[in-house]
């Protein structure tokens, strides 16, 4: 990926020697370069954390396997989860937002370009610190290495009595740093969206992508402090003699869970809403119709954001809450399914009556729709508290959230890559390799995660490094592990495609998909100033208006603003 960033930089920067390029890399404040750097770095961690997942699957392929020692396995799943959420999901979203939001709202850069660079470098520093734990964390008697407490790091396993050495400290400090990065980047996107829109772009004329990025970044600002505060309290426990979570001195283990999930559940929506954002741009273009029910989509997104702050304890149904507490969180969790369902229906409504072009971005979107539907429905099952008493912390949950984050988010991001890559690079990704990527990855995805639902129903708890013969888990786990190989090869196809198409892809032109939002009005890749003159828009689809002067959107929007 580094080569991609550098190559891109070369298009816009005057100096082309290696030193000039590297200097440009560290000194840049351009939102497009930072956006690509975010995405490139995240993709590297996607590969690293993905390989850890492959190792985990290999260990679980057969019962009583001894490929990985228990400690190594525990570090792997902790690092896999932590890296995928904080070093892959969050930065890819920041990258997409950085790259696309200014282009979509017709402005030249983010509101705070230098803050933007600061956010990126904080993220890189935090990410490196997390992986440096392998070298830096060992303490007295060799205790400690990479974090091994699980990505939600339940107290009091993280206390000094149970987590010796410095693994937990690395976990805390690296995430505090990436959280600072995420927060400033979120503030930047919100400020940019609210203040730098081009003339005519009212809030209700913004592309849905921008709307959803706005909402998701608001959520980042509101959710992350809960995690950071809890982590600082944990540091106080570990080093300053505090007893917040230290149960041996009267602290509360459940308090940590509340703090964590008040962050953790909105976090799930923070991750998936950008997926919705990609879909809401791509599906209309490839169905050749405007998004169905734009204002409802905006409303549903906002509703999701609000409700998602009131559902956190559905991660804690087994912790022994009262029946009233359990019922409350079951109700709020089911309610969040309603706006989510509305979105799926609206995408369906967009497809319905269209002329669907099955190009790569659209194929991944269709994969998303089916898989996210299943993910949503298993989510409803988990919201039914008594059902959750059986399913919680089992492989069913693992299957559910991988369906959300891979079958949902990652498919949407893949769709986004195929869709916007030509804009960023000027060349299209290869269709044949893309299809290989789709099929291999989809087959692998289903082999791995469909089977996990069943091993969960059969009583297999998550985070176990091995299991015995005889409880019906063997075949399911073996199929799941084979699936992991398919997925890895699929991602390899994507990597080859990304690198190869940099030089050999078909030249894209400004607007390869015949799309409607402002980023397609400028060159591919866009010049450093994005637009020669500030655009003026009159509707939600400015390029449609341009291409169809006989039937522009603004006519409809101005006439029927009350209709909708």
């Amino acid at each position: 990926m580094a080569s991609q960033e550098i190559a891109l930089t070369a298009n816009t920067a005057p100096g082309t020697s290696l030193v000039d390029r590297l200097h440009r890399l560290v000194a840049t404040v351009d939102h497009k370069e930072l956006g690509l750097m975010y995405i490139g770095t995240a993709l590297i961690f996607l590969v690293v954390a993905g390989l850890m997942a492959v190792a985990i699957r290999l260990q679980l392929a057969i019962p009583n396997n001894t490929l990985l020692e228990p400690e190594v396995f525990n570090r792997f799943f902790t690092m896999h989860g932590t890296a995928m959420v904080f070093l892959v999901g969050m930065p890819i979203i920041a990258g997409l937002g950085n790259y696309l939001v200014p282009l979509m709202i017709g402005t030249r850069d983010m509101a705070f370009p230098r803050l933007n660079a600061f956010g990126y470098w904080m993220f890189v520093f935090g990410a490196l610190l997390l992986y440096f734990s392998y070298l830096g964390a060992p303490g007295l008697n060799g205790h400690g290495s990479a974090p091994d407490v699980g990505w939600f790091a339940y107290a009091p396993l993280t206390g000094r009595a149970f987590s010796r050495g410095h693994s937990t400290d690395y976990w805390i400090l690296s995430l505090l740093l990436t959280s600072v990065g995420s927060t400033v980047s979120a503030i930047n996107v919100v400020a940019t969206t609210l203040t730098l829109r081009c003339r005519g772009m009212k809030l209700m004329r913004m592309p849905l992508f921008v709307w959803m990025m706005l909402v998701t970044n608001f959520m980042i600002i509101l959710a992350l402090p809960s995690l950071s505060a809890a982590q600082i309290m944990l540091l106080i426990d570990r080093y300053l003699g505090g007893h917040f979570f230290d149960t041996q001195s009267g602290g509360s283990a459940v308090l940590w869970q509340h703090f964590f999930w008040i962050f953790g559940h909105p976090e799930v929506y923070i991750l998936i809403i950008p997926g919705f954002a990609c879909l809401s741009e791509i599906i209309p273009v490839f169905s050749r119709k405007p998004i169905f029910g734009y204002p409802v989509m905006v409303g549903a997104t906002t509703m999701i954001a609000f409700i998602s702050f009131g559902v956190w304890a559905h991660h804690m149904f087994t912790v022994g809450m009262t029946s009233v507490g359990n019922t409350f969180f079951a109700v709020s969790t089911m309610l969040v399914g309603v706006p989510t369902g509305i979105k799926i229906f609206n995408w369906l409504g967009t497809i319905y009556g269209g002329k669907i072009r099955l190009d790569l971005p659209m194929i991944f979107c269709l994969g998303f729709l089916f898989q996210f539907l299943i993910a949503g429905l298993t989510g409803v099952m988990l919201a039914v508290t008594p059902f959750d008493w059986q399913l919680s912390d089992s492989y069913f949950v693992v299957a559910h959230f991988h369906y959300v984050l891979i079958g949902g988010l990652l498919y949407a991001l893949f769709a986004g890559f195929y869709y916007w890559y030509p804009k960023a690079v000027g060349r299209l990704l290869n269709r044949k390799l893309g299809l290989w990527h789709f099929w291999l990855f989809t087959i692998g995805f289903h082999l791995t995660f469909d089977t996990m639902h069943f091993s969960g129903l059969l009583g297999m708890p998550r985070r176990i490094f091995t299991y015995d013969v005889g409880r019906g888990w063997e075949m399911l786990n073996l199929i799941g592990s084979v699936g992991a190989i398919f997925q890895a090869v699929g991602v390899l196809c994507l990597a080859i495609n990304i690198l190869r198409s940099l030089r050999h892809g078909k030249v894209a032109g400004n607007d390869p998909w015949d799309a409607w939002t402002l980023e397609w009005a400028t060159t591919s890749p866009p010049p450093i100033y994005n637009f020669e003159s500030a655009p003026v828009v009159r509707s939600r689809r400015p390029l449609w208006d341009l291409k169809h002067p006989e039937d522009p959107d603004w006519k409809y929007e101005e006439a029927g603003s009350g209709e909708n």
Partner: protein
Amino acid sequence: MRLRLYRHRKMLRALLFFAFALICVVFAGPVEPVFGNTDGVTSIFRPLSQPAQEIKELSLLVLAICGAIFVVVAGLLVYAIVRFRHRAGDEASEPPQVYGSNQIELAWTVLPLLIVFVLILVTSRTIADIQNRQAPPSAVHATVIGHQWWWEIRYPELGIVTANELHVPTTDGGESRPTFIKLQSADVAHSFWVPLLAGKTDLVPNRENLMWIAPTRPGIYLGNCAEYCGTQHARMLIRVVVQPPDEFQQWVRDQQQSAAIGTSSAEGRKTFFATSCVNCHTISGTAAQGQFGPDLTHLMSRTTLAAGAAPNTPESLRKWIRDPQSIKVGSLMPNMQLTDAEVDQVVAYLQTLK
């Protein structure tokens, strides 16, 4: 253009075929273990006790509702994709530009709300039913305390302390005799999960949780710790031994006995009491009153060692005492560096603890 169209049709056919193959391979395979009556399999869909039975009934209802939603929505999706796929000549014009419809939006807001309403009613009823159950006078009371990585099991009213194997009586048709279990933790968070009997409940330090089971069929029910608790989370297995009332009574009487003092193993006994074993383990009626490890008073009445990590045979007991790490990496039981002869003696002594 022709080529493009052909590609799309092929793609669609491939998609449909793939979906069908997927359903056959991945979904049909596990149906037997999940819903069938396979031995040893702990499927939550064939429970043998309350409250797991009640949870299953609710779960099947939820599954049916979700399945119906899936069929309808996925069916609509497939229909829309096939019906409105790109065809020859589609380039000529754009489809009609439809921006939305208030009536339709209202419909697909209200319909899910109604479904949610139904789900909330059945859910809250089941929650209250299970959680607010009061213990009848006949109930057995047990306390399970989670340790890294084993289960301490106490019956305060019966004066029994054991480990890793929870014995409970069956519930006879006439007389309901559930077991109410207090859950506590000595160190980090754990979770007690025996899928055939009940949903899981966490064992949280500094907190007391309560759950209950009322199994009807004798047998051995397997379960795991379901909350990640450190290195050997995977090897923290539970066995619930459900016995007919008279067998259970016999077990209670046996457990209430003090440890047998055999003469055949005096050497081993001496070694045991001369090393630090006694600091962690209790053998009732002796000077060994340690609290950190499992109670060994009736060690031989249990079928496994180290929370299910090994069968309770003389060979594995020997291996376990010589080097606990060789059976359970990370185990907190130290290697006492005994000689082979000493290990044999201690094993001989422990085998008298019936």
